[in-house]
């Protein structure tokens, strides 16, 4: 339980990575947001039973991680942490859908399993690309870019505060758990009976702290505007970046690249 604190510190790695300076970091934030959005739309538009044709899309996150010098483990850990959700969403497919999909050797893979893995892959792609966006851009720049793109201010401020208070919540959580574990000796895990009071405490403390932080921001002139020191103007390379990736996403969507490559290798063309 005590190591929750270190995990919380680790959470902030994304912000630290966002302060790096690589060619990907230097791109205009709007470009990166739009490209990520197009990527998400393309990923979501694949049909339920599409599996193999999703693989080429991994080129996008892998290239970015490489060019932006993002440690693979940092992203992978976070994607892994969201896995329970996708398991929960997708696990009913194999149970409900037994129609035969395709044959691998002696095994018949049902459509249920195919759609399960398809959901899994699409989920990984989506979460990875979103994490990369944050880790190469930073939440404050994303906020200011959204404002520039005429996303309503209310919505942007909500988003920024949610992100900031997530840390506050986790911070309070780690302290509460630490205090508890130091005074409860032979217990493993958190017994059910303390959940109620602890959650209540946690909520109150988080609200309190969130309010103090908000006050501190007000005292330094915060008025809902997200102002930045560095603003990267839209350059030719931004447009090239966005168009280039979009073209690739569309190609991956329209053509089944793995099948095509396979055919090319075997020489059936």
């Amino acid at each position, binding site marked *: 339980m005590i190591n929750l604190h270190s995990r919380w510190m680790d959470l*902030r790695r994304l912000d*630290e990575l966002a302060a790096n300076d690589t060619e990907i970091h230097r791109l205009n934030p709007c470009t990166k947001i739009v490209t990520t959005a197009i990527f998400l739309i393309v990923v979501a538009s694949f049909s339920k039973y599409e599996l193999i044709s999703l693989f080429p899309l991994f080129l996008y996150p892998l290239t970015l991680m490489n060019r932006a010098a993002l440690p693979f483990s940092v992203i992978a850990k976070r994607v892994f942490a969201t896995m329970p959700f996708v398991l929960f969403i997708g696990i009913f497919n194999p149970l409900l859908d037994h129609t035969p999909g395709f044959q691998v050797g002696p095994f018949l893979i049902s459509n249920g399993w195919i759609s399960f893995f398809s959901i899994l892959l699409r989920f990984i792609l989506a979460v990875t690309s979103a994490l990369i966006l944050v880790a190469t851009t*930073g939440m404050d720049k994303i906020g200011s870019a959204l404002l520039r793109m005429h996303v309503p201010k209310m919505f942007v401020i909500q988003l920024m505060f949610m992100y900031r208070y997530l840390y506050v919540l986790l911070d309070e959580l780690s302290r509460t758990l630490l205090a508890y574990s130091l005074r409860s000796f032979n217990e493993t895990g958190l017994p059910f009976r303390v959940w109620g009071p602890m959650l209540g405490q946690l909520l109150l403390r988080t609200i309190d702290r969130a309010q103090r932080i908000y006050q*501190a921001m007000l*005292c*330094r002139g915060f008025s809902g505007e997200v102002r930045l020191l560095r603003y990267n103007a839209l350059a030719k390379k931004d447009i090239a970046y966005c168009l280039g990736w979009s073209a690739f996403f569309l190609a991956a969507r329209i053509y089944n690249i793995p099948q095509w490559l396979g055919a090319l290798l075997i020489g059936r063309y």
Partner: protein
Amino acid sequence: MSHHIIEIKDIEYMYPDKTKALDGLSLRILHGEAVAIVGANGAGKSTLLSHLIGVLIPSSGTVRIGDYPLNKETLTHIRRSVGMVFQNSDDQLFMPTVFDDVAFGPLNMGLPPEEATQRALDALKTVDAVHLKDRPPYKLSGGQKRSVAIASVLSMLPDILVMDEPSAGLDPYCRRQLITLLQSFKHTKIIATHDLDLVIDLCERTVVLSNGKIIADGPTLQIFNDDVLLQKGRLEKPLRMQGCPICKPAIR
């Protein structure tokens, strides 16, 4: 220069849970003065400071900062001239890097980025923390956090500095550095603290709070020499003013 006078008249404040934290309190602080607000835990020091920057609005009574009464319209203006260093630096430092944090105020004041950058650098230089500028604030030591928190307020060039327990949690060396730093400031200073030795170094005037009321207001040394008063305020004579029990043991 009349425009930096702080004038508090008969303010009362009750927290939503009906705790009366300030009870008919009046105070006038002149330009360039350094005033210590002392008193037991829960005496109302933090609550009083919160009123100086409009974080709390009195239930009754008025607060005037310079030529303006503190209200919704003047709040933005007043927050530019009053810089508040919070009790807990973690609440004050919320940006991903130290530099962004120190530049946050100037940017919000609408300064162009180059000027905000310069202001932030100057402020960091003043507190001797330029080398920390690219670090994330939550990874700094307590003393470093305090320095950066002070820089984040200095970068807005306030006329009045308000500090809540600035020396709490600092080791002796950091505390001494802080005192030297604060001594070099020409601002009007209002410092809430339990550290009475720090008060001797920094503030010529002391206000003693007890249960939301001012029970004494006068020259620091005179107040610290009044044993009855100190006891009433649940305070203890600063160590420097006590006879040393080791060098000169009291005769029993």
